Every structure is written in structure tokens, then in C-alpha cells.
């Protein structure tokens, strides 16, 4: 009897606002497509171009393997250095920024630093550092250090804010100074996760280090860009294959490291 009293039910009725919004998005997409001069003939011509490009890529050429190797070694060095210094700087910043350990006069500047480091893509930061310290690996390292602080610093800060304060309270009750509380109360609780963050960051930096080279901040990216400009597409493919292989290898390594630490805990 109650079902009769309910008016023709439309459980998924959408609001007028949602409909208008959908219509607006559709209209804007059409408008933007027109503005940017996408047309069918141009697309077909593009496919044609792409086919020729792909054709010139095969077979990949590893004859300049020494350039490839030099570029990669530099990229690796950039990634490892950036991760090392990034994590090292992240630790104190994260402790300063943790709201459960520090008063607000310490947390907000630390949080501001982390937010600023996260604000820009590493490539943009790399361009800024190239202007500041010149072309080369140093700019790449600095750019990725900033990125690492933004990422590891934030995650690490959150990990510290989730620790058990009971354990901290007990260490404080022994009269331990703050630095000792960190060593014996805070770090043991977050160490496992910190190792996880470091392997993620090394993995990310490995990928990013190939990218910052394109704007001139050292590493394989520079080699890749030069190969493009010389139209050596077969060498380009060789570089791309190697990047894929290295990134996969990095991921395997990260999984392996994580297994070691998870197995232990």
C-alpha cells in the first residue's frame, strides 16, 4: 500500500545543475577543438608523418653505446644523489612539521617549505636551477632534491603524525632530551615506512632524471634530445628501450628492497 503512494520513482534523477554542467563541458570541448585547429586532413597527414617517423626508428641503433652509457651513468648519479640528499633534508623538516611533536611556530614554516617544493613539476624547477647554476648535472640534482623533499617530506610528516604517542610519553617520562626521544621513540615507529618512501623516491627520481636532461640539466635526457635534433631516430629508439629497461629494473629492485624490510618486520 505504501508503494502505491510513492510517485513514479526515479532513484537516479539528476539535478538540473548537473545537466547544465555536462552540457557546458560538451560545448566547451567542441569550441576548444575548433580553436586549436584540429581537422581531419591534418590528422591523416599526422598519421602519415608518424608512420615515416616510426619507420626510421627501426631497427634501433646501439652503435653510439658509449654516449648512451655516459648519459645513463650521469642519470643514475643524479637520481641517487638527489634521493640521498632529498631524504636527508626531509627528515628534520618532517620532524619540525609534525603537529604531534612540535608547536605551531615550527610546523607551519616546515609545512610551507614542503608545499613549495611540491608546487612545481621537476622540469620547471630544473629550468629555474639551470638559470641559477648553469647547464649540467648539478641543476638536475638540485631540482630533484627539491622534488624529493616535497614528496618524502610530506609522506614522512604524515607517518610521524600517526605514531603512538604512548610510546613517546614513556620516553619523555624518563627525562630524555628531545633528540633522544626522536631516536628511541619516533624513528623506530616510522623506520619501516621511511625505507618504503626512499625506494619509491629513488624509483621516481630515476624516471625524472631522464626528463630533466631534456631541458639541459644533465643525464640521458640530454642525449635523447640531441639525438632528436640530429634526426637519429634509430638512436632515439635505442635510448627509449634502455630507459624502459632501467625503469623496470628499478622497480624490481624497489620490490626486492621492500620485501627484505617487510619480511623482517
Amino acid at each position, binding site marked *: 500500500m505504501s508503494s502505491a503512494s510513492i510517485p513514479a520513482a526515479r532513484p537516479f534523477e539528476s539535478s538540473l545543475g548537473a545537466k547544465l554542467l555536462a552540457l557546458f563541458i560538451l560545448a566547451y570541448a567542441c569550441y576548444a577543438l575548433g580553436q586549436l585547429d584540429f581537422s581531419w586532413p591534418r590528422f591523416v597527414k599526422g598519421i602519415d608523418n608518424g608512420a615515416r617517423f616510426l619507420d626510421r626508428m627501426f631497427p634501433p641503433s646501439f652503435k653510439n653505446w658509449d654516449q648512451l652509457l655516459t648519459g645513463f651513468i650521469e642519470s643514475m648519479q643524479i637520481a641517487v644523489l638527489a634521493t640521498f640528499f632529498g631524504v636527508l633534508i626531509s627528515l628534520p623538516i618532517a620532524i619540525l612539521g609534525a603537529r604531534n611533536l612540535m608547536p605551531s611556530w615550527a610546523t607551519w614554516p616546515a609545512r610551507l617549505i614542503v608545499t613549495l617544493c611540491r608546487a612545481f613539476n621537476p622540469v620547471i624547477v630544473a629550468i629555474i636551477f639551470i638559470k641559477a647554476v648553469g647547464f649540467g648535472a648539478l641543476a638536475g640534482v638540485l631540482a630533484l632534491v627539491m622534488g624529493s623533499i616535497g614528496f618524502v617530506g610530506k609522506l614522512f610528516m604524515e607517518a610521524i603524525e600517526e605514531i603512538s604517542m*604512548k610510546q613517546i610519553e*614513556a620516553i*619523555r*617520562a624518563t627525562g630524555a632530551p628531545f633528540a*633522544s626521544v626522536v631516536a*628511541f621513540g619516533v624513528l623506530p615507529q616510522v623506520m619501516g615506512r621511511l625505507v618504503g618512501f626512499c625506494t619509491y623516491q629513488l624509483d621516481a627520481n630515476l624516471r625524472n632524471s631522464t626528463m630533466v636532461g631534456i631541458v639541459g640539466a644533465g643525464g640521458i635526457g640530454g642525449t635523447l634530445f640531441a639525438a632528436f635534433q640530429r634526426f637519429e631516430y634509430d638512436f632515439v629508439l635505442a635510448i627509449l628501450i634502455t630507459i624502459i629497461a632501467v625503469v623496470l629494473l628499478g622497480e624490481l629492485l624497489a620490490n626486492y628492497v621492500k620485501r627484505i624490510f617487510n619480511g623482517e618486520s
Partner: protein
Amino acid sequence: MSVVLSIQGLTKAYKPGVPVLKGIDLDFDERGLTAIIGSSGTGKSTLVRIINRLVDPGDGTIVFKGEDLSRIHGRQLRELRRRIGMVFQEYNLVERLSVMENLLCGRLGYLSPLKAWLRRFPQEDIEHAYQLLDVIGLSNFANQRADSLSGGQRQRVGIARALMQRPELLLADEPTSSLDPKTSVEIMELLKSQGEDNKIPVLVNMHDVELAKRFADRIVGMTGGRVVFDGLPSRLTDDHLKLIYGGEGWLQ
């Protein structure tokens, strides 16, 4: 016997206008186990935590061996805390550290931060830690992680950590409330015997009246933020218990 700890006119309110402690006056001698009993929320925990300043006091003075500790902070506060051992209801061990490392935590107040980071504890402390492991019967557990222990074992480690400080006063905040009756008795025995062996006063706050009567040299009964009984366990009557806990049905 001389007074080690003297609390005068102590008040505390976490929220203005809602006092938890309403004027506590208590003196503690240099020996003996005092049980502070009372129902939940009467401020026993607050009282114990104010003594080593895990909670800041309101008005009143707390004099420990001639030093007023109610307003100190920074280095002075740390130097006070390392002279007072504390045992917690939920043990509060650092779960991911070994039993030995947890014991050595008791010495952090005496160790420079640099040495703490390098884990450079004096040989004397390490020997003391092994002796205490013997005392609490966990000699074979030195390198086990704290989170692999049972509740009773954890509380023993908690007591040993407090004793590592070579404290002049031992506080215990509901040390048996998370344990089964048999283990509770063992923990109380340990607290009592260690207080006597080290010649230090022990302050235990607890719910269990029978356990308090059995082990305490003195019982302090609290209700509504005030002390309503203070005396020998043998003088604690059902009338007192009605006053402390309210009602009487639970006494039958």
C-alpha cells in the same frame, strides 16, 4: 621517617570551571607502597601524572625532596623526570625495539643525545639492564622485540625500564588494569619487592580494592577530585568503600 614528596592544595582543571582535582593534600614517606583507589574519572591518573609533570598542575605546590616541581620546565624538568620512574597501564614500550633497547631507554635522561643516536650506552648501564632482566625473569628475552611479548611480560619490561633510571620514587598508573588476575598479583609483588629492595616509595593507582588491601602499606581513597580516605589498609571499611565508589550493591 622524612617526607619525600609533599603535595599541598593541588588543583587541576582540563577545562576551565570543570575541576578534576579539587585541593589535594598528601605527604609521602621515603618507604612503602601507597595505593590510590577510586572509580574511573576521579582524577587518580591525573594526580599521578602531575607528579612527573606529564600533566601540568593547576594551583598548589608539589615538593619533591625539597624542590618545588610544580612550575619547572626545560632542563630542570628533564632532570626531575629522570629521578622518577613511571609504569603505565598499557606498558608503553617502544614496540619495534628489543627488550634490551627498551630497558636502556630508561637511561636516556642521563645520556647525551649524540651518544643516544650512536647507541653508546655505558657498560655499567648494560650490566644493570642484564641484572634487571634477571630480576624480572626475562633473561632470555633481551633481543626479542617488545611486540612479541605477552601483556605480563611487557609490564615487567615496563617496570624494569623504570628501575633502570635508579629512581628515587616509582609511580605506576593502573599497572594491572590490562592484565589477568594472576598476572596482576605477580606485577604487584614485583612493584612491592622492588620498592623495598631499592628503598624507594611506590605510588600505585588502581581500581582493584582487594589487590590494594593485599599489597599496600597505605591506601588513599579518592572520589570527585578529593581525598576521602587516607590510612592503613586494615582501617578501610565498607563504609569508606561506599564513600569512595558510591552505592553499595557492588559490595555484596
